[in-house]
């Protein structure tokens, strides 16, 4: 089943390009470590999901590009066309010449309604091209004005018009020391609105990805392109085809639906984060070998100790022993920074994947008390290797990973709000103080729900 991607704003469009590029490059690679027929099936499945066919055989990404400035979209379109391997649809983009001035209210209340019809038309055309349609993948940042404001508006519209289709928002969490002074306002408004209209919020933190580039990839001058490529690698390892069950031999039809059903059925717990191992530069990859046991051990500890990447994991953090009562468990968690999970999905790709032992993830101590590991944990195993990694594992987790960052952003936004700083820029365009208060309330509730696991 096909997924339609909506790329919003500068961030969304740049990342979207890298994602499609990574997906296609991996599907066309010959390092899959599997037979030719398997490779063809993998390729066909990936193509059906993310690309449509053109007469001369060049796949066209199933995407709609939206930005209020023309520069980034034009760059994106030409980069795709230049690659020669794929391209965007000719009429798949919508842009203006105006920009949003990093103002969420402007994006949400002005640009959104003004261009609603054009944008929804583009999306509708893309959906109609799909033989079987699974849902939307909306890529946006939280801190700016276009991606965040228009993103929230478009997601709401999709909720109304395509209420049975799935919606996953890929959200870029801004740098803690970001440049946009009102980024915290933009962030809380975005998150509170998306929590109502989206099914799943897949979050990537700029800080975390930046560290991966610096420490794991050894990149000296880190550009946005490097960051986006790391992100695309993580997303690719989630969304590339996987087998549908242990004993089946065909690829899963609806990964988006299965993922959401496993991880985000509860309306209060929609925040997902991604961790993957291993991750390194191509040069180092040639000289490294891995075992499943080692990879999974690292991944599990990353989950438990709330580590953002494979380096610098705190091995002292342990799951609480089962003898403690629930109250004791909570205080212990707080002391040792133990990350309690609601649900986890581990996707394994590569050689000897059937021998990989994931029992460590089925420990009830990792999970909240009201969900058993048999319901909370799922694993998808696929033999076909991903992107030149002989073995790779990715964890999509609904856990307390994002509580601290969220709490921090809400706190900072609240401090600004308490002194009414920059509020007039929002009230000018129809976002009143009450809307801010509503956002604060709903996000405080999200934080409280996650803390009470």
């Amino acid at each position: 089943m096909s997924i339609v991607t909506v790329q919003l704003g500068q961030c969304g469009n740049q990342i979207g390009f890298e994602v499609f590029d990574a997906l296609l490059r991996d599907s066309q690679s010959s390092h899959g470590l599997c037979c030719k027929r398997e490779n063809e099936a993998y390729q066909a499945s990936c193509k059906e999901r993310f690309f449509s066919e053109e007469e001369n055989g060049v796949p066209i990404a199933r995407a709609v590009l939206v930005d209020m400035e023309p520069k980034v979209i034009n760059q994106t379109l030409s980069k795709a066309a230049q690659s020669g391997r794929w391209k965007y649809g000719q009429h798949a983009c919508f842009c203006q010449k105006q920009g949003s001035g990093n103002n969420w209210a402007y994006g949400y209340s002005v640009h959104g309604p003004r261009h609603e019809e054009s944008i929804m038309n583009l999306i509708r055309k893309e959906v109609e091209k799909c033989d079987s349609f699974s849902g939307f993948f909306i890529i946006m940042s939280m801190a700016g004005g276009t991606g965040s404001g228009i993103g929230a508006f478009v997601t709401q519209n999709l909720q109304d018009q395509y209420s049975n289709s799935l919606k996953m928002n890929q959200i870029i969490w801004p740098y803690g020391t970001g440049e946009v002074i009102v980024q915290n306002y933009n962030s809380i408004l975005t998150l509170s609105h998306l929590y109502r209209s989206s099914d799943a919020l897949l979050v990537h933190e700029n800080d975390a990805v930046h560290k991966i580039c610096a420490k794991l990839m050894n990149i000296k001058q880190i550009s946005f392109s490097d960051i986006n490529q790391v992100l695309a690698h993580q997303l690719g390892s989630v969304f590339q085809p996987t087998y549908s069950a242990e004993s089946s031999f065909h690829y899963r039809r609806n990964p988006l639906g299965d993922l959401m059903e496993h991880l985000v059925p509860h309306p209060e717990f929609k925040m997902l984060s991604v961790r993957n191992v291993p991750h390194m530069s191509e040069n180092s990859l040639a000289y490294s070998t891995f075992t499943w046991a080692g990879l999974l051990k690292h991944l599990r500890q990353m989950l438990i100790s709330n580590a953002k990447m494979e380096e610098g994991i705190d091995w002292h953090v342990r799951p609480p022993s089962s003898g403690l009562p629930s109250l004791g468990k909570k205080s212990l968690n707080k002391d040792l920074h133990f990350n309690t999970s609601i649900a986890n999905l581990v996707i394994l790709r590569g050689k000897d994947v059937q021998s990989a032992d994931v029992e460590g993830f089925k420990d009830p101590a990792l999970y909240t008390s009201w969900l058993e590991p048999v319901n909370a944990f799922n694993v998808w195993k696929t033999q076909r290797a991903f992107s030149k990694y002989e073995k790779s594992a990715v964890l999509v987790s609904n856990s307390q990973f994002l509580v601290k960052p969220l709490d921090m952003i809400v706190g900072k936004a609240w401090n600004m709000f308490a002194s009414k700083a920059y509020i007039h820029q929002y009230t000018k365009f129809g976002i009143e103080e009450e809307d801010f208060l509503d956002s604060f309330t709903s996000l405080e509730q999200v934080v409280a729900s996650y803390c009470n696991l």
Partner: protein
Amino acid sequence: MRGRRVGAAGARAIAGVSRSLPSDHSPRSSGRAKFDRPDDSAPWQLLLPRALPIPAGKRLASIALGKAALPALCFARANPRAALPAAGSVGWLLRAEDLCPRQMLPDPSGPLGDEMTVWGQCDALASLGPPAPHMETEGPVDVRHVQWLMGKLRFRWRQLVSSQQEQCALLSKIHLYTHGCHSDQSLGHLSVTEAEMLRDPEGGQQVSGAGAAQNLDLAYPKGLHFCTPGMGPRTFWNDLWLVCEQPGLLPGDWAAPLDPGGASACSLLFPLRVLLRTLEQENRRLEAVLAWRRTELVFWQWMDTVLGTCAPEAPAAASQPTFLPWVPECGDGELELVVRELQTLEEELREAAERRRVAWEAKARGCGRGPEWSATRRASQETVEKELGALQRRWEQDSGPAQAHGPHRLVRREDGAAGDRDLRAAELIRTLRSQEACLEAMLRQLQGQCRQELARVAGALPGLIWIPPPGR
């Protein structure tokens, strides 16, 4: 403080209903997919088994079950949409199922049309009724777990609706494209099964060679084999186009009688027949399950009464644990005794009932006088009569043109002509929509009752603050 104590019955009900909705229910999409690739985009490997026995009928019953289970939980709100699409429904007929398939195969042992089952609409739904709320003694269940299960149910529901829409689009395309290809003029177009059998007769053989078609996943990897590169690149629509170009192809080939020398015809048809028979069996089993579901409530109520009458005898049995229960020889004397006992019991009961009735009547008579009383009585009588009348009218509407129940074949007609036993899809949709409105009203009423009950409970506990869950 959030009220987290919820009966486990609710959780189980939802989990059960959620399981009854298939998770990977996947009618495949249109024929633009390439069929010689062994991947999940090729629709036809699964289409043959799926198209036959489990179409909208079963889903309707599952939907009804799901909707009946939901009122037990206050905050649920299902978003049901009827099985058939509104657009383009004008030209659809449901043809009672005993036609052309018989003419197509020498030994027709299964349906070949696009089957839809028309249920005794009111029977299936009326027998469910609202589940009686009762306290479970297993211990409290965290409400978050229940909300989790509800969420999973919602996701499955949405996927079901999407799959349903996909299937309808597919059916529409096939019926359109194969118009004029069928030997039976009154049908006019091929069904999905017929089209697939034409396109790939060997595929039918391969699929049936997998054994039982019950596990549809098993059929799939076998299907991989018949899509090997050696067969050459083909697309569904190419083949179909070829078939349509030679309109004589269909009747001549299929109507040919079997002869032992015609080895190829035999070898193609026999596995197909086996497959069809297996599918038919599965269909019958599923229908049996559904019939059971409809009568389950009655059965358990009966069991309750049986156990109730058996209970008093338990102590006597317990006092002689080593003896198996045995039927005493019934001498006449004993029988007479029993009869006499029963008669005395009956008398006592009658007297007790009479006493009660007299007492009640006296009481009622005491307060039953006066103009207000008769006015209220008249008013309530009128409301009851009105409601009864409305119900009756609705029943009559529903059972309007004599609707045959059971399997029907979906046929697309441009001219709108219909046989005696044919049903128009538009009418069926209308009926389903009115039932939907009925059920929604019932749901809202039950939700209101639940809310009132909760408010009462909350009011009774001082210091309890209600925090409603976030709106969707």
